[in-house]
């Protein structure tokens, strides 16, 4: 049977556009359907524009917090509108870049809301396209807080938080995961009074406990108010913003602010996506797939990748899943993402980055662990930069020196983690990390020193 395309990809985010381009490279006729803008959340409303804002916050911090030590004596003024504007234009540039790549690789695109009608047909807007295979990569959206539904004005999600027209004087953030913390860091750094509420007993509950603790200390020192083990109760809108009741370990408290940012997780974009007769299997608002068979759903010609198939909801994971899926469909390779080696980053300052098992998880998995630590305060490069917060913590299996996990907090943590992802992927051991020469003076030496400290060989601590 002749189909319009070999492959239709539903969604143009980091999974969708990458999968579409890869398929085109492998000589397939590809259509990518997108309801909004190519690049998805990541590029337009997530990873990239938030990093533009966070760099801005860091610049403000460098001058306001460290400036005096560096000889700055001026009276810095900051334009919030310009910060937001710059962030939007960075997203705009990259978005054009993907359009260019689609042209280069001859990937067709169709804009409009898509629906999978049957095993080989996708409707985009009012047009129908047939394809031998369909890859769904529709992503996720913010999960609303029951009783405090998003209104886009006082109760907002990350999308509004990065495109406000005026800087709020105060903000309450529900959720101490990466998104909540990054916005908290940004707004706190530029002078908004920030109160963050986390239900669990620590922020970044997925990270190593030592890291959570260190980040809590750093952000609190910067003036952020962080409440852990605290449950958000009633939310009421007021004339100027919101009023939130919070059940804290110290008893119930009430906070008022201009804005309430809810960042308590995400929901899969699966509504009205498939014709009911198809019977595509879902679980907890996500699409069920078999990663070992190229991320196929229970319908053999329909695949799904990226955030819409469930955690860890990370752009780099989505990207790799899409490549594995498409290469499998094209008969090019048969591989899956190694979910034990997924780096995770939080771009606050100090930033947080990790890969592999936490110390606790490693012990629970039955490993006899050896931990190596190195604080940035002992790094010459960090001293020179006046950015000495944080540390590198490496978790090794004591028997063979296998790298089980790496947990970094510090100004360069999110850049340094890549080396440890590579080390883990190539099964480098403790000695390999110590003996690999790291350039002096750099933050990266802390990685080598941490491995050395674990074996008692570091000469700098």
């Amino acid at each position: 049977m002749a189909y319009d395309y070999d492959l239709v990809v539903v969604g143009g985010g980091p999974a969708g556009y990458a999968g579409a381009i890869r398929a085109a490279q492998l000589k397939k006729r590809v259509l990518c359907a997108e309801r909004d803008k190519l690049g998805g959340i990541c590029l337009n409303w997530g990873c990239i524009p938030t990093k533009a804002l966070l760099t801005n916050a860091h610049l403000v911090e460098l001058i306001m917090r460290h400036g005096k030590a560096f000889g700055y004596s001026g009276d810095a003024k900051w334009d919030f509108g310009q910060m937001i504007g710059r962030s939007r234009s960075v997203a705009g540039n990259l978005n054009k870049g993907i359009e260019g790549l689609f042209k280069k690789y001859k990937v067709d695109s169709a804009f409009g809301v898509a629906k999978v009608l049957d095993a080989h047909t996708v409707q985009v807007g009012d047009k129908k396209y047939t394809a031998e295979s369909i890859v769904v990569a529709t992503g996720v959206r913010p999960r609303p807080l029951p009783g405090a539904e998003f209104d886009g004005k006082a109760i907002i999600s990350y999308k509004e938080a990065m495109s406000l027209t005026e800087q709020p004087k105060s903000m309450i953030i529900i959720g101490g995961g990466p998104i909540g913390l990054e916005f908290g860091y940004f707004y706190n750094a530029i002078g908004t009074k920030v109160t963050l509420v986390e239900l669990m007993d620590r922020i970044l509950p997925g990270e190593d406990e030592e890291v959570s603790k260190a980040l809590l200390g750093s952000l609190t020192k910067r003036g952020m108010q962080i409440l852990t083990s605290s449950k958000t109760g009633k939310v009421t809108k007021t004339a100027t913003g919101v009023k939130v009741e919070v059940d804290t370990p110290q008893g119930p408290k009430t906070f008022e602010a201009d804005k309430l940012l809810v960042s308590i997780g995400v929901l899969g974009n699966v509504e009205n996506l498939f014709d009911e007769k198809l019977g595509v299997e879902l679980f907890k608002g996500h699409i069920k797939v078999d990663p070992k068979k190229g991320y196929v759903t229970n319908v053999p010609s329909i695949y799904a990748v990226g955030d819409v198939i469930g955690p860890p909801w990370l752009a780099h994971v989505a990207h790799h899943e899409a490549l594995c899926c498409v290469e499998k469909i094209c008969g090019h390779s048969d591989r899956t993402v190694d979910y034990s080696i997924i780096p995770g980053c939080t771009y606050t300052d100090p930033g947080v980055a990790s890969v592999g098992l936490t110390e606790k998880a490693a012990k629970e998995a039955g490993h006899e662990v050896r931990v190596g630590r190195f604080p940035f305060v002992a790094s010459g490069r960090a001293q020179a930069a006046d950015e000495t917060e944080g540390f590198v913590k490496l978790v090794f299996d004591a028997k063979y020196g296998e790298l089980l996990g790496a947990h970094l907090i510090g100004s360069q943590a999110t850049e340094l983690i890549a080396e440890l992802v590579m080390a883990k992927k190539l099964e480098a051991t403790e000695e390999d990390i110590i003996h690999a020469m790291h350039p002096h003076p750099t933050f990266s030496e802390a990685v080598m020193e941490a491995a050395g400290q674990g074996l008692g060989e570091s000469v700098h601590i």
Partner: protein
Amino acid sequence: MPISVTMGAVSPTMTSGHVVEWKVKVGDTVKEGDTIADVQTDKAVMPLESFDEGTVAGYLVEIGQEVAIGAPVLLLAKKGEDVKAVAAGATKSAAAPTAAKPAQAENAAPAPSANGQEPAAAPAHEHVEAAAGGRVKSTPLARKVAAAEKVDIAQVKGSGPGGRVIREDVDSFLKTRTSPPAAASKPAAAAGRPAPADTVVKLNRMQTTIAARMTEAKRVAPDIHVTVDIRIDQLVAIRERLNNSLSKEKIKLSVGDFVTKAVGVALRRHPVVNSTFDGETLTRRGEVNVGIAVALPDGLIVPVLKNADQLGLKDIRTGSEALYEAARSNKLTAAQMNGGTFTISNLGMFGVREFDAILNLPQVGILAVGAAEKRPVVEGDKLVVGTMMTVTLTADHRVVNGADAAEFLRTLKGLLEEPATMLL
């Protein structure tokens, strides 16, 4: 003519060894004294150095392949020689002896050949191939696990990118290698719960060496055991004072450190105990080098604290600590293991009151140290509580008389009971 680097005797008692990890690769320039490989000896993993200069043309043995001392392991092209030509010549000559070797009985563990292929031929063939092709693509972790488990990594099929052997491959290789026996011995215990099956443990090289040396000592040396109780109240008090003043330096002296010091001084005064004996000649050793037995998870090793009689307590502590660490992380150098003139074995930390140790030939004495503990002591006509420790000297009676042993112990007892006399 190209040069063959041979397996050297990096440990005093080794007769053969195998390469655990190459430290140089084909094309590398090697200078005299460069470490070319880590070698597993009968005791530990030690660096093997080159005595020649040249460019590495190829490996003549594989990782894990047992070779006798003096056998060639690596081929160097001399200055001016073509590395490739040398390597080509080597493959021909190397292939023959490798294949002729009785196929690595301990490593080969013939795969339980499911499809009836000739099991004997397969491993031998792979050996030749690997020798010709150079290194086996593998990850550092996979090599480490393979070395620890005595697996010839060339026999493991790699599943990583480009056929690289990853840890999982070694693990699954080990599973297939060790699974069979259990199924065969199923019946037995008809009534009641079946008892756990016997586990057959093949001794590793270190354990084999220990077994041989213990037997040798008991067979060759008629030993005498002399025991003495020592009251160490003063020592305990001095130790506490010293540790208080050393706490800033994070150094904590143990009772064992005082014993080491006292043994060093006593050996200096009783040269007959500080000797080695080869069955014919007795050598009174000039240096007092005290070996300290260290228990390892799967064996026992005796690193040596050099010139213990001249060291202060602080140096004894830090020196011993460094040796323990090196021993436990398998990093002892030849220098740290050789040259012992006497040995101390301390089981005090296990609460052992007293025991006999077996001689560490060719040394003629070994001291077994028990726990420091409070015991009733007769002082004059009164019964008091004192801190006591019991030590037993095992001596080679061929050259050390009972009286020699007793005199040594009297000195030792005096030094430990009145530690200040060590200063004399």
